């Protein structure tokens, strides 16, 4: 019973980590209507920036973390400037395809710049787990979960209540209409990518803290994808619920079903949930329903 509760808590916290990475998808989608397939690569780039500032430059964590976030924001801005600004007004298909191109381009660049070597990642969160009675909760996931919830509440408020957030929501609805209403589509997309890159870097810190860093860690981008779709691509608050559900489902499958069938069903459970939710409710739990006109 104790193990069961512990599995549920750990699963929920891993789910919250997925939510944080998925928040990168949603923020970019909410402000620019582009689904960014290269989210996992942004996580890796964030990870390498953190590694570079702490391990290579030898800065203390108090200095290196803000510096990494600024650098990550710059990378996001550069990607937007080089690739996406030129596509405003083109079809959504072109923009999505550019992010697919970015997926392999960034993967290749990371490999060329840093090589396939395994590197130690700085310890950002205390390694010692939290003991609750006999239960054991990893500290990085616990603090990460708190950061995720704070970020979700803050961003949700920003996008739904503030004036500049609502402007970006208009951009997500329709580029042409938004720009004819005097909203800067360019500015909105640039902001989205900066924010997306920063969130990915925070995700990388929580995910990798005290572990090793290789380019393979970008798989978390695809692990977070079902969470984004389950919540609906427009909802930031919904990510928390979706992340917890998927995390718990995955943890329970890994711990109780996998030993029975002797496979790693846990790794595909999020995708099966995703396929099911797409068939039942294509807009996800909290996504917008759109009416199409010809």
């Amino acid at each position, binding site marked *: 019973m104790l193990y069961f509760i512990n599995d549920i808590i750990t699963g929920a916290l891993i789910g919250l980590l997925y939510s944080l990475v998925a928040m990168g998808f949603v923020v970019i989608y909410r402000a620019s209507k582009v*689904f960014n397939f290269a989210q996992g690569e942004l996580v890796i780039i964030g990870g390498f920036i953190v590694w570079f500032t702490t391990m290579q430059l030898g800065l203390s964590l108090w200095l290196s973390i803000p510096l990494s976030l600024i650098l990550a924001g710059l990378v996001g801005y550069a990607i937007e400037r080089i690739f996406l600004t*030129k596509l405003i007004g083109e079809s959504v*298909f072109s923009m999505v395809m550019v992010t697919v*191109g970015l997926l392999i381009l960034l993967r*290749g660049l990371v*490999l060329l710049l840093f090589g*396939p070597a395994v590197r130690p990642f700085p310890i950002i969160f205390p390694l010692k787990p939290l003991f609750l009675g006999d239960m054991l909760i990893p500290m990085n996931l616990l603090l990460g979960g708190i950061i995720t919830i704070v970020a979700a509440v803050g961003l949700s408020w920003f996008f739904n209540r503030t004036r500049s957030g609502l402007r970006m929501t208009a951009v997500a609805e329709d580029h042409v209409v938004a720009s004819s209403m005097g909203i800067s589509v360019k500015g909105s997309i640039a902001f989205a990518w900066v924010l997306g890159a920063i969130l990915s870097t925070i995700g990388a810190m929580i995910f990798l803290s005290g572990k090793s860093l290789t380019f393979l860690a970008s798989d978390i981008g695809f692990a977070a994808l079902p969470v984004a779709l389950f919540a609906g691509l427009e909802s930031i608050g919904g990510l928390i619920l979706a992340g917890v559900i998927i995390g718990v489902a995955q943890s329970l499958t890994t711990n109780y079903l996998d030993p029975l069938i002797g496979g*790693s069903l846990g790794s*595909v459970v999020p995708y099966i949930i995703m396929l099911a939710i*797409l068939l039942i409710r294509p807009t996800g739990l909290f996504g917008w329903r759109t009416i199409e006109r010809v």
Partner: protein
Amino acid sequence: MDPSGIFPTSYRSDRRIIRTRWQALALILFMALMVAAPFLASGRIIAILNMMMISAVIAVGLQICTGYAGQINLGQAAFMGVGAYTASILASKTGLTFLLTIPLAGFSAALFGFLFGLTAARIKGFYLALTTIAAQFIFHFAVLNLPSSWMGGSNGITVPPAELFGLRFVGETTQFYMNLTVSAIMIAGAFGIVRSRFGRAFVAVRDDDVAAGIMGINVAATKANAFLIGAFYAGVGGALWAYLIRFVGVDQFTLFNSIFFVAMIIVGGMGSIMGALVGVFLIRIIQEVIATVGPNIADSVSFLGGDIVFAGMNVILGGVIALFMILEPKGLMHRWNILKSSYRIWPFPY
């Protein structure tokens, strides 16, 4: 557009694929050159041509699914893998002849693709692309986690050579003729499909699926059909691949391979079978150049080791996709068509 003096007088002649004598002549010359290639060229070039023909079959299938029907498909490598595994399991366990295993590989891949195409009844746009990524992951999961006596697990499967009337298809040259025959049939079929009723339905759905539905096209069935046909081509290509490499493993069919196929049709031009072929030709040549030059660079930049080919491939193809989407979203075939029509009407502007 057609050259001056060539104009269709009936619907039948308007649908013709070969429209002028010069085109017929060019096609015959090209086919003759291909048949004679093993006598003219060295083994290395034949090997490259083999890869090109197999990729052409798969890219043409993707072209029908993505370029004509507008359904983004990032799971073409998984569909190819299903075909390759079907062919190799049938060939190694039951000893069926390749005349049967290749079509059966196509059908099993088509079934797998159709299942994911069915989701198109509810989902559209890039959501659909996400379900095809799920296809990629589920394929990997199935191969690695099902009992290894079924699909070989992580060890892969060794494929016996294809055999016909006691003639074993080993070596690049004999396989060249097998690939040439199959890919010629498949590509001719693709030209037929896209000018048929199905092809017109694909284009209508791509241009506006709501409007197509109002005009009486069964949109969900059309999308599922597009996946079915695209996956059939991928399955046949996968079977040819299995017979060429004589070994299948799950690492040969990753998301990256799928994106390489997408790059081929973007470079060549969406919505054109010729475009897919041009794209395959160019991308395979780039790949070949990187594979030749890569190791030399790797010697001077030693810390990268053998990964430089994969990394360089990714950087160049990713850059190519992004550049083409920004600068030439309709691909090279579109540019070629503009050029062709402007010299045909020269010296007039239109």
